[in-house]
């Protein structure tokens, strides 16, 4: 087998998606820093977010980066309807975010607290029954290009 980098380059994993983008210059000018928080999910959404790191989705080419703290993030993604014990953790994470910021909600089951009753501010997207990486990526690109977060 070749050395790692040569083996990797020979594979050409990245996939061309047919998302509507404004133009290539805008895509690379703007970047979106994302922090995700597990609301107490059954790990399906976490695994899908983990799949997004696959070279196939080539996130960085779209200017999307995952951060390790909400203080560096433009968008907080809450994965699944939260458990009661996770609610204060989520509220604290939101309070730590620099303005302007957005909150993206994703839910895949009927267990946990209702997002609608939490009165969360700055909700820029709420995905229901869309848990696949392609759907999530598409929404993140839309948010990045919407001009709300630059």
């Amino acid at each position, binding site marked *: *087998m070749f050395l*790692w*980098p040569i*083996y*990797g380059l020979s*594979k050409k*994993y990245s996939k061309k998606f047919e998302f509507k983008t404004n133009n290539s210059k805008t895509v690379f000018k703007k970047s979106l820093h994302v*922090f995700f*928080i*597990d*609301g*107490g*999910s*059954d*790990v*399906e959404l*976490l*695994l*899908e977010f*983990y*799949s997004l*790191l*696959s*070279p*196939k989705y080539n996130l960085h080419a779209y200017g999307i980066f995952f*951060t*390790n*703290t909400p203080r560096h993030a433009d968008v907080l993604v809450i994965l699944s309807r939260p*458990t009661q*014990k*996770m609610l204060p*953790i989520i509220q604290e*994470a939101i309070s730590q975010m620099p303005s302007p910021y957005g909150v993206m909600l994703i839910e895949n*089951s009927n*267990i*946990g607290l209702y997002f609608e009753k939490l009165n969360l501010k700055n909700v820029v997207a709420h995905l229901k029954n869309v848990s*696949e*990486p392609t759907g999530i990526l598409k929404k993140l690109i839309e948010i990045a290009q919407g001009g709300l977060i630059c």
Partner: protein
Amino acid sequence: MKRLLGIIKKEDSEQLFVNSGSFVGLVDNSQSKEFKAYKWQKELFESKEPKDELFNFRLGPSSGALLESVTFNIFTYGERIKEVYIDNSYKSRSIEKLMIKKDVFEGLRLAEQICTSFAFSHSCAYSKAIENAFNIQPSYKTKIMRLIFIETERIFNHIYVISRLADAAAQKVLANHLIYLFDEILENNKYLFKNRFLKNINSIGTIKYISLDQLKIFVNKLENIVNKFEKLYKFSLKSENYLDRLHNTGLLTTDDFEEFNFDGPAVKAMNFSLDTRSFEDLFDDFKPILEEGSDALSRMIVRAKEIFQSIDLIKKLLIKLQKNIDEKNKNISIDDDQQKRNTIALTESPSGTIYYYIELVGNKIDYVYVATPSFFLVKAMEKALIGQIFTDFTFTVESFGAFFSDAAK
């Protein structure tokens, strides 16, 4: 090797849910002295207060270093980890309570939501329990297809765990290649079932209809992915840096097994097996994969070898299935006859055996206890972290392949 799977508390009575090899069932709690695991399962800890000179490094519940919401209370002296307490209650959704008073078919969907990574294993264990209770005999085809998909689940779960481990051990290129393969398997699942994690395809007494041609294409794609994994895995073993990080990290002993009763690849890495697939009639001459190191490296090797073993098992099962594919699916209905029933069933998930103990009144669930592999692995993780330095933290944690949603339920 006896295991205490759980403590069944109902009103004032208490019984022990045990597995002693040939026997799986409930025994009187007077036998609690025979199980060292009784103490921690009963939450009879002597003291959780750390010594004065230790520093409590609290990691979580939400941190960039962690995928799931969980808190690690790590008591350190300098760089050395002295004590660890894991709090996974943030993930608790009380699914066992949600199942009570539910119809058996509604219970199945809740079982799949305990942990998506083991969704099919949970679904099989639950449906087997209900089938035992109502004397429902699934067809030969259903039995074989369930085994094929349990092995498929094992393959993608093991690739995921090894990718997390490679990422933790700073093998970023390997990790990215493995994430790609993980995603490819999920896409393959979606092609056949419209669901990436094999949810909603198993039911009580039956399974979703899939033609033999579709299944052959599915298995061929899976085999190609496993072949790609084999190349990467063999190449990764040439990296001394990678091996050195995993070797002698997160060691466990047989005393730890007796105390915490964990299962799965963590036990197989200690050169003995509790794999319930050994008793499965449809597997000819099944031999569990064993390693001797008892460390993170051995656990990784067991998982990698199990991937190759699983694809071989799938191919053998496919040959058996070809003779029986034309069996028609049955519509199963269960009447609410108000009779009381108790039932137990198990399935070998990627990280250990899942046990279901269910009490039914008619077709409604009256009580349920689920013994999940991660429940025990979390305790093994706490033990394995003691004595490690901080750098080894992530390798040790990821090597167990435990999910906190599975442990907290």
